Structure formats: C-alpha cells, structure tokens
C-alpha cells in the first residue's frame, strides 16, 4: 500500500511537471493559429515562391521581447507573432526577457544567431537612449530594422483639479517658478522625454522617477505630482478619473485621440514617442532579410492586423523597411542634441 501511495505522489509530481511544460508552450499563442491557417495558405505559398532559393524558415522562430508580459511592447510582439506564424506557417514563440529598462533583452537580440530564427520587438528609441547614456553591449547598428506597426506619442497629463489647463499655463508657471513643477516619469525614456520638453520650452522642472506606469498614474491621480509624463495611450484611464491630457508629441492629431490637442498646435515642435520595431541581428543574410520584409509588407496591408492593434488601444501606423530606416535616422539626429545637452542628468 505504501509503495502505491509513494508512486501516486510521484505520478502527481509528474503531472505537475507536464502542466509546467504545457504552460510554457502556451507562451506561443501562435501554435494553434499555425494549425488552422488554410485561409492564408495561398499567400504563404506565394511568399515561399519568392524566396524559393533559400530554406527559410527552418523550424520555429523566437521573438525576444525585453519587457514583461502584458505590457504594450509585449502585446505588439504577440499580435505580430501570431500573424507571422500564419504567414510563414511555422511556430513563433514569444520570449519575455525583461530587466534593466530593456537592456537585458536587447543585448540578447544583438548577440543572437543571425539566421532569422531569432527576431526581436522593442520600443525604439529605448535602444538608442540606452546606448548613448550607458555602456551597452549593442549599438544602433547591431540590428536590421525590418518594419514597425505602431507609433505611440508621448503626452503630458495634468492631475485632477490642476490649475494647468493647457501647456501654456504650465510653461508660464514654470518660467516664473523654476524647478517647482514636479513631473513624474517612468521607464527608460521617461527622463529623456522631460528633458526634451524642458529644452523645447526653455523651462526648468523637477522630474520624479516612478518604477512603473501604474504607480506613476496613481501618483498623478492622487495629486502627489503636478504632471505625469507618459504615453497618450494612458489617456482613457486618466481622463476617466478627472485628469487631463495637456498635449501629445505627434505632428498631427491621431484618429484614436483626436479630442486631445497636440503639442505642435500649441507651439511646441515635438514629435516624440515610442515606435515598436521588429528587428533581426545585423548580420542576417540578405535573402532572409528580404523574405522577412516581404512578409512584413504583407502584414502591413492586413486590415485584420490593423484592427487588432486598434482594439488593443495601440495607434497603428505601418512603416516598411525603407520608411522605417529613414524615420530612425531622422529621429536619432533629433535625439542626439537632447542627450548631449543633458549628459549630466542621465
């Protein structure tokens, strides 16, 4: 009897282990999708023809995300991974490697085998700012930037019952009372965004660092800081609780947030935000890169994909390989002086 019980306990543990494995596999929402993609088969085979001379992909693809599960970057990676899996008819696994503001995961992407089976999704300019302000193992040129599907502008929010009703109010007050306005920020780009605004408006404020977006918004809604510097996607929650977006840093109003003003129209020339980029290690063979950019272009035309982004509150904006690389080079140039001017603050 004793033996039987012992065995059954061991068996129970075995079941636990099996559960662990299953759970691990569940990381890839794409598995199921890969099995019932008959509808997409035609498109997929076209792609295969285009890239007939190379065998890509050979086996599953891994997408590294340098942020935790459930966040915006993770959501983007999962949507793209799902679609990529259908298009390429292979399994796509999303691997979260968070830590050190994204540096851990981004380093790993740069060091991955450049065969197209390890890709990455991260929020540009996280990599650029990390590189310029720290001692990173990667540079901007460690990657091939394949495509980008969303652009989330940065925004400034006023606390409920705030005396600031516009950016002008804020700037006027800050001009008369240098250093008195507290602006909360979080994440690798948080400080940079505030410094960029300080440079642009020629004011001096006090940045207050928070550990995460949730804590930051809590601090704002409780009135413990005057302004929160976050992405415009936080607007619904903040407005619901009585806060107010003073402006967001996009060239023109986005359809998704057209009830709120941009900084541009209030006289501050700022185009700053996070663009989630799909990357591969730099030494990837040209044929594999072309195969991937072709697939990305296919995805870029998919209305279903756009809808998934919109449903997840992510402002959809597709840039193909060439457009993206132009965008990145331009943005690098405009970020450089902000970083150089404020080296001491980082």
């Amino acid at each position, binding site marked *: 009897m004793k033996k039987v019980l012992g065995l059954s*306990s061991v068996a129970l543990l075995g079941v636990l282990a099996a559960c662990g494995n299953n*759970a691990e596999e569940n990381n*890839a929402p794409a598995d199921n999708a890969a099995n019932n993609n008959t509808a997409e088969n035609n498109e997929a085979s076209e792609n295969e023809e285009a890239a007939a001379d190379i065998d890509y992909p050979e086996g599953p693809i891994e997408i590294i995300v340098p942020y935790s*599960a459930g966040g915006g970057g993770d959501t983007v990676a999962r949507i793209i991974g799902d679609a990529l899996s259908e298009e390429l008819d292979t399994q796509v696994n999303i691997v*979260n490697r968070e830590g050190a503001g994204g540096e851990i995961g981004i380093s790993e992407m740069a060091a991955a085998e450049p065969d197209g089976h390890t890709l990455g999704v991260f929020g540009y300019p996280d990599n650029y700012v990390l590189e310029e302000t720290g001692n990173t193992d990667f540079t901007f040129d460690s990657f091939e930037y394949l495509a980008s599907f969303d652009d989330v502008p940065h925004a400034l929010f006023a606390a409920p019952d705030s005396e600031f009703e516009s950016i002008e109010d804020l700037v006027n007050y800050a001009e008369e009372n240098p250093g*008195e306005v507290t602006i909360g920020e979080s994440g690798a780009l948080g400080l940079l965004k505030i410094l960029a605004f300080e440079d642009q408006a020629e004011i001096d404020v006090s940045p207050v660092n928070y550990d995460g977006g949730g804590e930051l918004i*809590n601090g704002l809604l409780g009135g413990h*800081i005057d302004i929160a510097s976050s992405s415009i996607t936080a607007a619904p929650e903040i407005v619901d609780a009585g806060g107010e977006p003073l402006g967001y840093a996009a060239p023109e109003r986005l359809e998704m947030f057209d009830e709120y003003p941009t900084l541009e129209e209030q006289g501050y020339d700022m185009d700053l935000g996070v663009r989630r980029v799909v990357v591969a290690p730099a030494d990837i063979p040209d044929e594999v890169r072309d195969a991937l950019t072709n697939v990305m272009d296919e995805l870029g035309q998919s209305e279903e994909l756009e809808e998934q982004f919109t449903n997840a509150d992510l402002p959809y904006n597709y840039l193909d390989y060439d457009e993206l690389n132009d965008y990145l080079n331009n943005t690098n140039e405009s970020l450089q002086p902000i970083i150089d001017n404020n080296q001491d603050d980082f």
Partner: protein
Amino acid sequence: METLDILLSTLSPSVLMIVFIGVLIGIIVGAIPGLNGAIGISLLLPLTFAMDPQNGLLLLGGIYMGGMYGGSITAILLNVPGDIVAAPAAMEGYPLTKQGRSKEALYYSIFSSMVGGFLGVLVLILFTPPLANFALMFGPAEMFFISLSGLVVIGAIAGNNLYKSAFAALLGLFVSTIGIDMAAGAERFTFDALTLRQGINLIPVVLGLFCFAEMFLNIGKKANEVITYKDQPIKRMTVIKDIFKHKYLVAKSSVIGTAIGVLPGVGTTLAVFLSYGEAKRTSKRRQDFEKGNTEGIIAAESANNATVGSSMVPLLALGVPGSPTTAIIAGALIIHGIVLGPSLFEQRPDVAYTFLYGMLLTVFAMGIIGAVGIKYFSYILKVRQEFIVPTVLIFAIFGAYSIRNSLFDVLIAIIIGVFGAVFKKTGVPLAPIIIGVVLGPLIERNLTRSMTIAEAQNLPLLQYMLTNPLAIVLLVFVILLLVVVVRMRKKDFG
C-alpha cells in the same frame, strides 16, 4: 443588464468550470517552489485572448486566488514555501507537521485562506470607490512610513537573538541595493556585470533561502531523520470552530491584508508579515510561535488571500494596476478592448459584475479543492527524502530559471541557498532577510521621491512628509509599533 441576469450568467456551467480550472492551476503553480500566481497568469495570458472577456478574467482571477493558497501546502508539508507569502505558513505549519499534525495545519491554512479571500472580494464588491480614493491618498511620504512599519515588525517576528535578527534584516536591505539606482542612475555593487545591473530578483532569494537551503540540509539524511510520518486525525469542524473563536484575529488580519493590498506597489509580503507579527504580539501563546502556533497560520493565510480582492480595487476603479499580477490582468483586459476605470461599470457591466461575483466563486472553489485535497496532499510525507530532495530541487531550478529565462537567477538562488543553509545552522532567522529585500526599494524609492518633491516645493523634507494628516497618523503608528515591539521583547527576554 439586470442584476439577476448577471448572477445567472455567473452561475452558468462554463463560468463554474473556468473558475475551478483557474483555481486548480493557481494552487498547482503556487505549490511549486519558484512559481507563483503572477507567473501562472502570465503563462496562461495568451489563452484568454480567445475567450470571452469575463471568462478570461475569471480564469486569471482564479489562478491569482489559488496561487495565494497553493504555496502553503508545500510550506506546511516540506518546509518549502511555494511562494514568499507562504513563509509564515512554513514557520508555524512545518513544526506541526513534525508533530504529526500536518492535516490540522493544512485545514487551518485552507479555511483561513477562504475567510480572508472572501472578505477581500467582499470589500472589492462593496467598497471599491472609497477604497480607491483611500489608496490615492498614499503619496511618497505615506508609502515611506507604511514601509517603515514593515521593518519595525521584524522586531516582533523572528528569532530570539536581537543581533542575528538585525543582521538578517540589514543583509536583506543590502541585497536590495544591488543594481542600478533608478533615481540617480548610479550603479551599485554591479562590478560592471550586466546581469547584476538589473538587480537581484526577489524570487531567487526566496527560493535560495527557503527551498535550496532546506533541501541542502536534507541531503543525505535518512527518511525518519527528517520527519516521521504520523497522522493524527482531526475533524474539519474542530478547526473551523477554532478559527471562528479567533474572530478578532481573523478580522484584524483580513483588514491588514485588505488595506495593504489596496496600496499600489507595496505587495502582499508586507501585509502577510505585518499580520503575522501582530498575531504574535497579541497572542496568549506567544512562546509557541515558530514551534507550531496555529494563530500564526490563521493570521498569515487570511491576510494573503485578503489582498487578492483588494489589490484589484485600483485596477477596477482607476484602471491603475497596483501589483505585477494585476498589471498582467490589466493587459488581458486591454487586449479585449475594455477600458478600465470608473466607466467600466457603466459600459461593460456584464464583464465587471460577472468578474466580481465570479471572484467570490473562486473562494469556494479554492475551499472545495483544498478541503478535499488535503487528505491526499499529506501522502507527500510518505515519499522518501531521496525522492523529495531531487524533485523539489528540479522544480526550484525550473522556477528560478522561468522568471527571466536566465541561468544567472538559478546561480543566485543556489548561492543564496548555501548561505541560507549556513544561516539555518547558526540560528540566523530567514524571514527578516526577505522582508529587507522587499522593503528596501520601497523605503528608498519613496524617500528619494519625497526629497525631490520637497526640494521642488522649497520645503524642508520633514515638513513636506508630514503635510498630510494621513502621514502623521502613519508616523504615530510606526512609533507606537516600535514602542510596543520593544516592550514585548523586553518582557520575553528580560
């Protein structure tokens, strides 16, 4: 949607099944060292994308609820808490197991978890708006004081040697400083290693101290050297009656769990140790603590499950996730295109209310699975050590690796495990180390935040920190707690 419709849909077979599956998964991941509810939720998150929002939410909510309890099973039976919040359950439950009273300990744990879990969800249903406003009152200063109270409570909790306890707490605080200081950007104790720059994650520390250390000490021991299997029968009703006899203790612990659970970023650990320390302070059988006092189990277990409901208050009321687990749940909602915040109850009452009432069901599912399962859980004690040690170690390594898919975390867990084994042999209490690791960043970050804001407002630091009446109340509370703990210690040790 009518209330009745919502209630009926909550009781539909599919919802009941989802709730059961969620809780069961939660208990399993909670029981496995190194895995916890948060990890279980992030693993199953993608599955919920294909479900109805309310079902997906309830699956995750069930995992959250079950995960808070599951850790106690391995804590009581093997002295290996599956999760940090089960550490007090190990401190009190394992001694009971050694006396052959494992079932009694397990019953205390499940029924206290149920009461705490139920009260937490009830508070979520009834008092979400006022509690959310209460949580918003906590700025950097208030957070600083409440975190300090956690450090003070170390004095009440562990050990019988002041210097060893103080050493343990300071060691924990030290470990928490490793990595990049986000406020100033300075690197501390990183030796230019990228892996150290991200700091030491809490889970490898917990695994090392509670799991590896225990297993290292058990290696090479014969089965009956560690534990002799005895099974003293106990009636469920006896335990339930005794829990109701301690109604003030249950109420107090659930209130502590609920109140701390509401605060964003503070976490369950503080709630659990605060109520455990409180239970010890007020107990008539204080000398029994760490020798198997059921009051310690009641306090800690009702507190940790009470945080499940209350930690969702800021999420539902403001759309602001207050903990890593609720942040992942928030992510699930956003994918479904559901806007969190006050408008949730107007725009999607079906989702909001099915979820709320369904969370009550998770409590009962947990109770049923726990109460029925206890008979079988205890059989684990009959397994010989040479099977237990490698199995637990494999799970622990898997758990440490799974946090960030990093071997570095496994290495950290093993190194800390060696230290933990030495500490256990030399009588250095382990709980204060964990409390130090958890509270270090909270205390430091909120102090630096306070300093920045005070400077911006041109106020002296102390004047800024005591601007709000709530901060003054909390400061008085910390001072009172300190006085009480010092007097208690004097009485105990002369």
